[in-house]
């Protein structure tokens, strides 16, 4: 399993985490799928709509924001292939809460932000039986887009 992502887009994901710190930042990954390889083409940054006092450890994308994201994906002839979010001062691994809310198929890119600086991003997919996340390789493309 592989998700191809340009260095520019990966930087945008990390920047969203840094700018949201100490709260969690999140957004949608739009792209294409070809067999087991996914290609991220563009991001849609999203507001974290979780209750304000919980945003340090929780994120929520409002369904109406998701609707706008799906419409934009359709307009661009892309698909929503994944979700990215940050973990302030926490490893870039799915938590139990991430697992409870995740859907099989989506790529979930999680970025660890430590003291306001991006440490590492890792990508995960929930197994079909919802028992575990399997790590997905992030292949960084050295291209301009």
């Amino acid at each position, binding site marked *: 399993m592989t998700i191809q992502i340009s260095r520019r887009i990966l930087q945008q994901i990390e920047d969203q985490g840094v700018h949201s710190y100490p709260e969690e930042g999140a957004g949608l990954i739009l792209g294409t799928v070809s067999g087991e390889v996914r290609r991220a083409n563009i991001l849609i940054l999203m507001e974290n709509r*979780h209750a304000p006092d919980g945003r340090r450890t929780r*994120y929520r994308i409002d*369904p109406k924001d998701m609707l706008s994201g799906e419409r934009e994906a359709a307009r661009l002839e892309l698909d929503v292939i994944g979700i990215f979010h940050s973990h302030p001062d*926490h490893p870039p691994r799915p*938590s139990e809460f*991430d697992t409870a809310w995740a859907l099989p*198929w989506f790529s979930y890119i999680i970025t660890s932000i430590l003291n306001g600086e991006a440490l590492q991003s890792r990508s995960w997919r929930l197994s079909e039986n919802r028992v575990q996340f399997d790590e997905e390789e992030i292949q960084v493309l050295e291209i301009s887009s």
Partner: protein
Amino acid sequence: MIIIRIPTPLRPYVQGQKEIEIDAFSVGSALEYLLLQYPTIKPHLYDEGGSLRPYINLFVNEEDVRDLQNESTRLVEGDRLMILPSIAGGSGGGL
């Protein structure tokens, strides 16, 4: 005819289709058609008790059906029924 828009995580259960065009007079009847034609999608939309899963949101055009008549919401020619998953998560802890 109305169109049901399928989110990417659920497309494997509807033979990869992004949109399904059908004849339906209500949200409930549209979902019934979906379950009949593509039964493997059912556990991802409904729990064992037959209730729509809480992380599944339904929109008719721009409106959440919870602000309308839920599954009794009437559909007319050209309506788009969007199935949207709730997106949430978080670390739940600290380093």
